[in-house]
């Protein structure tokens, strides 16, 4: 049978690059086949997408060699736009995939492009929206949709064109865990309704594993170093996977920690639950957390509240933060996490209530002195960059204080070295990789000796390696006595690092305890707050049930 996609000796280089971004790529996909395409950031995954949907070489600044056949015809022989009926792509960023203001017009846009007659459009639009369960939003403004809904709309726009191959280019990278699950669920349901081939580009494997068995692995050199079943790849190429910064499923990671030599790994909690005894299990030794019992309060809030557009975002929150704590703020999107962190750091003034830092009301602090106490790392690191080189970026606040040049140099070099950025000191901050940008933004926030650091989802959208590196740095900082407060959706991080966890729900603090006591809360509460248990806890619970089962039946 002729393969639907046939890539032969593909090599690609950008005009600006010194090395090939893709080299010697060969693979075939059959009609209706699904495949996971994994690789670290910068491995050319998205470039490959552009090759498959025919955008390259037409729009490429650079050179491309080799052939790609789609349905037996070379991509370069398709007329521009024609390939969109064969290959559809859902991209990563929910904000930049649309050009119209409301949902139906956006779906119609694709249909208009391929010349669908006016009379047929209405029905096609409705069908496409129904496939992703968005029919109720037909007349909604796109701006009012959530990130997850936008991605579903992007999917509907593609489905309306009825492509035979669907490429998902990290579609969940900007979504929270709940929206991620929902999108993956939607795609699973689709598979039952219509037939299409699927290429899933990801660096996080969780939840995708049962959609595709086959897995292609790209390395940083842009070569495919594995084409096998995912399970086989994890067995045979595990070290490369880790080295390339690919996130193994959380369950697999968990087992690897204690059994680095184990060959067969469970990929989902369900898989583990089916045969718990198949997998060697050692009770987890957790990282010893410095407990926060310094007892010295650094920040106190009393009954703070804030509202925007007649909606209460923060309602009556009172918190005390103690020196040396590692606090995680968790909760659903829109629960007020970011607003709370901004109020705590003095960026946003509360509408009512009081905040004091080290016993002095926040509003009485001089802004420049306040910034030497509190650092705040924004979600998008680029927003915080203000100079033209990595070095100047870190040196900036020291220069503002007119410290002697020699001291500045010393301090900056030390920090850059710790953060693995010293070699990049003359680069422009914007030209760094995602992980480097994040580290730089943290570096700029602690160089002045800030002892209280707030971070807004610092692990969002990063590959596994960058993430581990960042957490290591934060942990190090924490051990040296810094107080850390971070917003996160990642319960593994909460479980591993936090000494205290604050749960926000509808603008209120609904739980404020240690992670352990949070995991022990009733399941229905956790569900209402849109939290899921970390894998280690899930597994422990399964084990306990198993042990109970074994002990009662034997």
């Amino acid at each position: 049978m002729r393969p639907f996609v046939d890539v032969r000796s593909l090599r690609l280089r950008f005009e600006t690059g010194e090395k090939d971004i893709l080299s010697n790529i060969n693979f075939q996909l059959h009609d209706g086949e699904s495949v996971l395409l994994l690789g670290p950031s910068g491995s050319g995954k998205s470039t490959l997408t552009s090759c498959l949907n025919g955008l390259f070489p037409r729009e490429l600044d650079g050179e491309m060699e080799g052939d790609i056949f789609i349905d037996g015809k070379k991509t370069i022989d398709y007329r521009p736009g024609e390939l969109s009926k064969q290959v559809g792509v859902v991209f990563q960023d929910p904000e930049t995939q649309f050009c119209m203001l409301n949902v139906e017009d956006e779906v119609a846009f694709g249909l208009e492009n391929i010349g669908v007659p006016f009379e047929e459009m209405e029905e096609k639009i409705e069908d496409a929206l129904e496939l992703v369960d968005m029919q109720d939003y037909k007349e909604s403004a796109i701006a009012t949709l959530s990130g997850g809904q936008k991605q579903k709309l992007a999917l509907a726009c593609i489905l309306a064109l009825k492509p035979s191959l669907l490429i998902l280019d990290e579609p969940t990278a900007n979504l929270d865990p709940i929206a991620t699950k929902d999108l993956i669920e939607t795609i699973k349901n689709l598979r039952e309704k219509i037939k299409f081939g699927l290429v899933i580009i990801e660096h996080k494997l969780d939840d995708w594993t049962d959609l595709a068995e086959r897995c292609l692995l790209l390395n940083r050199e842009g070569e495919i170093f594995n084409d096998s079943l995912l399970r086989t790849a994890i067995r045979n190429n595990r070290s490369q996977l880790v080295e390339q910064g690919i996130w193994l499923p959380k369950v697999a990671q968990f087992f690897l920690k204690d059994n680095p030599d184990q060959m067969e790994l469970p990929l989902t909690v369900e898989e583990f639950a089916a045969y718990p005894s198949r997998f060697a299990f050692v009770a987890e030794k957790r990282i010893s957390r410095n407990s926060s019992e310094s007892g010295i309060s650094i920040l106190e809030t009393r009954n703070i509240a804030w509202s925007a557009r007649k909606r209460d975002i923060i309602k009556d929150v009172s918190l005390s933060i103690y020196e040396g704590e590692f606090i995680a703020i968790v909760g659903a999107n829109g629960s007020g996490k970011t607003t709370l962190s901004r109020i705590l750091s003095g960026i946003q003034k509360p509408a009512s209530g009081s905040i004091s830092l080290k016993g002095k009301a926040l509003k009485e602090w001089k802004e420049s002195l306040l910034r030497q106490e509190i650092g705040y790392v924004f979600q998008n690191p680029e927003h915080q960059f203000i100079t033209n080189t990595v070095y100047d970026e870190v040196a900036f606040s020291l220069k503002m204080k007119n410290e002697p040049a020699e001291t500045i140099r010393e301090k900056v070099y030390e920090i850059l070295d710790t953060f693995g950025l010293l070699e990049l000191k003359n680069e422009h901050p914007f030209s760094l990789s995602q992980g480097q940008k994040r580290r730089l933004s943290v570096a700029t926030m602690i160089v002045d000796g800030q002892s209280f650091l707030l971070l807004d989802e610092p692990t969002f959208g990063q590959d596994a390696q960058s993430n581990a590196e960042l957490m290591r740095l934060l942990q190090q900082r924490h051990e040296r006595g810094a107080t850390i407060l971070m917003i996160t959706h990642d319960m593994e991080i909460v479980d591993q690092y936090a000494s205290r966890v604050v749960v926000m729900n509808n603008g209120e603090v609904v739980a404020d305890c240690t992670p352990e006591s949070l995991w022990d809360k009733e399941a229905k509460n956790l569900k209402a707050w849109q939290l899921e248990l970390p894998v280690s806890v899930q597994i422990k619970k399964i084990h306990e049930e198993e042990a109970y089962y074994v002990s009662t039946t034997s």
Partner: protein
Amino acid sequence: MFLQRLNPSLKALTIMLFVVLLAMIFDPITPLLFLIWTVSITFLFGKVAWKKYTLYFIPFLIFAFGMLWTTIIFADTPTNKDDSITLFGMTYPRESLLTALALSLRVLNVAALSLLFIFTTNIVHFILSLMQQLRLPPKIAYAVLAGYRFLPMMRDEIKIIHDAHRVRGVNQAKTIKEKWENYKRYSIPLLASSIRKAERTAMAMESKGFTGEKNRTFYRQFSIKKTDWIFPLIMLLGFSAAVIVSLEMGYLKLFS
């Protein structure tokens, strides 16, 4: 509601035609009468909230006032110096005063025409109609629409960048030079992110089969109906009447 249902391209062309015609008139009576006509049409045939309308109109009043007094002061030397009018205890050449009034009323009239358009037109429909009636290239039309979507994102982003820079300890700018430096610091990340957004959006649109070719179909179809021509006719009627009245009163003045 007739103005809302009017073909947007035809409406725009009509407005533009009368802006050009007004530019040839240098007496105060014609623009005054046509101003009244334009505002009346706006409220008679378009469902326009008068509060919002007034709010939009006020800046033009200020602008027109500035125009009025400066034109009196900086007016070209009148041909007939002896013919003067005394107002508020000051004497002005009659010709300068009339010209100043004419120019200020022109500003207001142009404003009224623009507001008629803005308050009764769905701008997305305007762009779609430009493509269908006036052969605006789809590449331009959809780029403009895509750009329009960035507006709220950029507003949010400006605020975030402002806060993010404050945290870095910038922003306590006191002198103009420091303020200027701050503006430059804002603009680079803002421009950089908008360029990236634009590139990504273009790519997403192209992968949905957009090529910029003119032979596309349309989900929202626009055409110029026979009844649409009533609007330019009504406006022409009003304009002619204004010119004739002004002529009868002996004020009409074309060009300067």
